[in-house]
């Protein structure tokens, strides 16, 4: 039954998402063209002031548009969650012959999948902009890459290896934390207040965010207090790398813990505290 629910969740989000994906691709093409134009004009020493203003504005808009894309994915998933669970549709959803756990898991998986897909599309878009915008981008990259790799080999140490390993887990934990917190806020919002579900949800989320950044501050002050990111150099990073690794590890655990906690509280509410209408 999970597969069936997942199919419908995925379809609903995809139907709205692919349009935005296409739009961002279009924006990327435009952005690439604008970038190329700017570069060509600069190299040809053309002095058309108006053109530069418009081109930069255009490029700026493209970048903003691209940044909004992941946000659109988040909003679509949240809308799906809210509508499917806590609007009148909930009367149908929660009387289906499907386990509550499956219903929730499907929503989480959908959110995660579309976050990953959105990032992937974004990376492709940025690549498009660079390829179109910079003449001979590939050759430039081919030249740059060995240089970067050499630098990297110089400063490499075990803690960096650990960082690289931990980092994807950190991302995953962070994503899952966000997803489960958003979902939990909607659930609690609808349990507490029948009329102002969304407002209550927002309020709870703000509260949790503040609490979280507080905890984060405490953790960072213990671990990376002597790593001031504003004035970091490679050498400082290399010698104090272990602390940064610990910081990353603790953050991963923190996010992961919050994600799991939020998940189970949410599940409990969905199973036992449901109160539609």
């Amino acid at each position, binding site marked *: *039954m999970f597969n069936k629910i997942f199919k419908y969740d995925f379809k609903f989000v995809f139907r709205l998402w692919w349009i935005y994906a296409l739009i961002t691709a279009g924006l990327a093409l435009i952005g690439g063209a604008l970038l190329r134009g700017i570069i060509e004009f600069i190299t040809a020493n053309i002095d058309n002031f108006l053109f530069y203003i418009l081109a930069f504005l255009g490029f700026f808009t493209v970048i903003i548009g691209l940044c909004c894309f992941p946000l659109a994915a988040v909003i679509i998933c949240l809308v799906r969650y809210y509508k499917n669970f806590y609007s009148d549709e*909930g*009367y149908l959803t*929660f*009387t289906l012959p499907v*386990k509550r756990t499956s219903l929730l898991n499907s929503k989480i998986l959908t959110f995660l999948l579309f976050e990953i897909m959105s990032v992937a599309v974004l990376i492709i878009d940025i690549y498009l902009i660079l390829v179109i915008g910079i003449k001979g981008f590939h050759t430039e990259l081919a030249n740059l890459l060995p240089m970067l790799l050499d630098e990297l080999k110089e400063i490499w140490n075990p803690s960096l290896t650990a960082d690289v390993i931990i980092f994807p887990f950190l991302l995953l934990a962070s994503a899952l934390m966000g997803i489960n917190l958003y979902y939990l806020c909607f659930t609690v919002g609808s349990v507490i207040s029948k009329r102002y579900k969304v407002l209550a949800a927002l309020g709870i989320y703000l509260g949790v965010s503040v609490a979280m950044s507080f905890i984060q501050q405490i953790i960072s002050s213990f671990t990376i207090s002597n790593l001031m990111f504003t004035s970091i150099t490679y050498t400082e990073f290399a010698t104090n790398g272990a602390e940064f690794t610990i910081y990353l590890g603790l953050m991963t655990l923190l996010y992961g813990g919050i994600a799991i906690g939020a998940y189970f509280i949410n599940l409990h509410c969905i199973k036992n505290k449901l109160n*539609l*209408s």
Partner: protein
Amino acid sequence: MSILECRSLYKNYGNKRVLENMNISVPAGKIIGLLGPNGCGKSTLIKMICGLLVPSSGEIWVDGMPIGPQTNGIISYLPERTYLSNGMKVIDLIDYFCDFYRDFDRKRAMKMLQDLMIDPASRLRTLSKGTREKVQLIMVMARNAKLYLLDEPIAGVDPASRDYILQTILQNYNPEATVIITTHLIHDIERILDEFVFLGFGGEIVMGGNADDIRGQYGKTLDELFREVFKYVQ
């Protein structure tokens, strides 16, 4: 074997006690009216059987199983409000029901839509409110469920539609299934009932029995009897 059993059922909302020590045993193959004034706990009971609400204490058994996905599979529930997703087309809704409910009869649903001249390709949001309610009723009645729960199916509906709804219930009547109808519009519904239960506040069972025998026993319709019994109830 009873299709539905409630034992020592209690439901509180905070300090308010909606259902108090309710014990009910419902046999298979009957059309039963759950009748009572507004706020007496009819809808609450129905929602608990569907799993939408959790009892404060007590047990509910449907066909010998506890409430869960297995019981949802044999219960066909018609809530008071429309739960349809307006972006869907009617045919999408039919596919959805076919997907999740093994006992959904696609042909029957299509035929009922045809009788009402509803185009399956039309989007739900383009249909009138009354038509959407009828589509929802068709979805519920096209299932071969063991227990049908119809919560106020004819409230807020015009007389012609009311007749249609009652006819649909009779037409899709399955002698092995039980239909529980909650309503406070007794006059329209009493002729299709086998049995009835008068529910007072706190879910108290004030009276119950065969709907037709009431006329012989009291010389009154169920509607008239109801007015008498609940005359002083606030």
